[in-house]
């Protein structure tokens, strides 16, 4: 049994974690969601909140190497964790191969769902380097996009898989 730290309802506690390889800290109430913590405490506005009930996938980040809906995770759960967000995908002023493919194949329009999808797709390609279209569509079905009809994303992800295999 791990020790459970008791925090009062309105008490703000310091949460320290590693985000995109950089140690960061900020304050959170027990009920503060990780998505709000990333956005409004750490000013990482690239992670978006589309539904706050874990269905749309816009807020997806990596938490200790696994995918997590940051709107369904409390900030205090991220204490000591390693988090990956869209801001960490490429160096300043550059796009990585997946981001380049997204622009090349028209995989985004309004761009709001895109961050979560890039995070999921990156994680997916690391585990499934040679996916079929069906695999890609199944993975993407964890996300909602209202603009594109998904086709550009499917083609972008498949093209990255092909060029790296």
């Amino acid at each position, binding site marked *: 049994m791990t020790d459970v730290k008791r925090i009062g309802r309105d008490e703000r506690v310091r949460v320290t974690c590693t985000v995109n390889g950089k140690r960061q800290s900020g304050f959170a109430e027990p009920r503060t969601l990780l998505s709000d913590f990333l956005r409004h405490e750490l000013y990482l506005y690239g992670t978006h909140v589309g539904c706050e009930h874990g269905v749309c996938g816009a807020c997806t980040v990596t938490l200790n190497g696994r995918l997590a809906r940051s709107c369904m995770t409390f900030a205090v759960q991220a204490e000591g964790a390693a988090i990956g967000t869209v801001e960490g995908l490429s160096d300043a002023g550059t796009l990585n191969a997946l981001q380049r493919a997204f622009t090349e194949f028209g995989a985004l329009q*309004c761009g709001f769902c895109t961050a979560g999808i890039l995070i999921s797709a990156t994680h997916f390609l690391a585990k499934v380097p040679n996916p079929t279209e069906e695999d890609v569509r199944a993975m993407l079905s964890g996300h909602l996009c209202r603009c594109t009809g*998904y086709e550009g994303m499917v083609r972008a992800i498949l093209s990255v898989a092909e060029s790296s295999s």
Partner: protein
Amino acid sequence: MTKFGIGQGVPRWEDPRLLRGGGQYSDDLNQPGQAHGFVLRSPHAHAIIRSIDTRAAIAAPGVLSVHTGADIVAAGYGSVPCLVAREKADGTPMFTPPNLPLREGRVRYVGDYVAFVVAESHDMARDAAELIEVDYEPLPSVTATKDTLRDGAQDVWDEAPGNVCFVFEQGDAALVDTAIQSAHHVTTLDLDISRVAVAPMEPRACIGEYDQFAERYTLYTGTQGPHLVRQVIAEPMLRVPQNRLRVVSKDMGGAFGMRSGPYCENLLCLHAAKELGRPVKWVGDRAEHFMADDQARDNISTIELALDEHGKFLALRVKTVANLGAYLTMFGPHSSTNNLGTLAGTYTTSAIFTHVTGVFSNTPSTGPYRGAGRPEAAYVLERTIDTAAAELGIDPAELRRRNYIPESALPYQTGLVFNYDSGQFEKNMDTALTMSDYAGFEVRRDTAKADGKLRGIGISNVIEQAAGGFPEWAEIRFDPSGTVTVVMGTHNHGQGHETVFRQMLADRLGLEFEQIYYQQGDSDHGMAGTGTFGSRSSGVGGASLMMAADKIIDKARQMASHHLEAAEDDIAFTDGVFTVAGTDKSTTLIECAKLLQNFMTAPPDMDVGLNEWASWRPPAPTYPNGCHIAEVEIDPQTGVLKIANYVAVDDVGTVLNPLLLDGQLHGGIAQGAGQIMMENVIWDRESGQLNTGSFMDYVMPRADNLPNFQSAVNEDAPSPTNPMGIKGAGEAGCVGAMPALMNAIVDAMRPAGVRTLDMPATPHRIWQALQGGDAT
């Protein structure tokens, strides 16, 4: 020729920013010292508010103010204005309900606006809202369109007995009556078009600010038309001149018509900001979106199509009941009355009459959504044609072919409103028939049947009106270093105009993308603007930009004439360079701009500077059109539906960027498919409670529900009504998809005895219909 000219599939300029988390959506914006607002919403579909006790909320930690309907009335604000005026059956003006941002005395839908709490944090405001005690007296409610006109139905407004807001008619009733009475065959059909939530991925948010010294408001919110929103909030609602309000809209996570006008929260934040002397931010969540944001479609129609013995369409009569919700927002009756010309389709039907009754219900307002009446009208027409084809035993493609408006007849005044300027309707269908291997369909149907599946194919020929009416503005400003700022009155939020307008300008002025800085979305920056809706931005905004660019060339040519010491008539302009004919003397546009910006080098007889603006008012709308063919397969054991193939041939006029066009068409088809296959906002018929209040209950298409769509464009019939021949592409996909898919679904089910099916064609409803049951 610049490297990124018109017609090239240039990747979007805005993508790197959006892909790296650099978008600036409404909740990404914050102002120093901002407080946070929360709206307390009605838990009842219809109730009298006997009293509101806010004492405990005001005393709660962090609370700065609590506002109720009485405060808003006392402050003297006006209602959200409705810009579309209609009449009752007796010719008197329709009843426009009061639409102040907080309600007094009565609430009229689940989610209606009761109180606004402002606190130091969003959570504090939300906690305090729970402490507000509202004494409600619940009343019976009416939510479903089919119930609104029933005898004994609850009136939503005492001022609108029987729930009728307006009656609107178009066409020649007598001509249609005569034609129907004497026709060889009349196909009659009842169709129900479901209510949909617009569901852009970004929930709405805004910040209201008030500068007490300048006595001026600023509203930060995602909107499709910052100038339009300023216009409808400033004088009608805030009661201030328009120059006392600035509206700023940055990136926006989808809009689709839903963010055309103002929302109650805009005024609430501006009001509280003035009262508190602090900026006030409001961020809505997804549940609030499903409860209270403008929704769309939602009508029921009875259709009669009269045909002669050869299958020629003689007359069409459509009677529609359109659900407006409890209040009218900015465009209120627009969708149900302003795009009915689509009922004429691509056909020669000479007599058309339509009668629309707009009704109130205990639901949030309906407003524009991708197509705004166009998909509804196309659905009504094309579903009826397929039904007629089945009744007469004529192939649906052949029946359409017998009724086409031939290209030689253009321009063509249709039987209802629309006057087509261009189009190759039969050619579009022929291309689609080939692409979909229509001729080989029966073999595929038999193969599917052998496998225990039901396969169907459906055609829709669609045409819509776009890019008409409202003008648009563009400004081009050079600076002393020779770089350019372009300011548009339209608003890009995913369509790619930030790139397309750069392409147009690069093409016309011979500039590189990097030399152009693009601005939009700020009513203080752009001189004027209407906004982005109705597939109008490229056509109307683009035309204004080209006019401004031509003014730039004219003035720069005058400068070049001075500089090169040659007559203006002898100077040609190509790819950004002015050249004196027959010589090697030349100068660039940028050099001319630099010379003009410097008062020391600008000629004394010319105004200093190279800055031009232009407005363009379309003389007539355009008519994007096309043919979509869908093929589906149904598993009769489970009712599960699969889109086996989808072909779209679209004529959107001149193609500016094929990559972006694909995105618009595919996205539109996906939204149409969503409505046909799964989307439906439902309220409990008894209690009026919202049953579809989350993405768990309101189902939207995902990547595994949709196939690859095959698309082709017909560029051989550019529109003569705007300088570039653009027709508009934003809505075409959605207009085509709804009828094509449902025609395919019903075609698959027809051998099992199903004549028609209402959307959404969920597995449950398909299965029930196949069992001969009522698919409700």
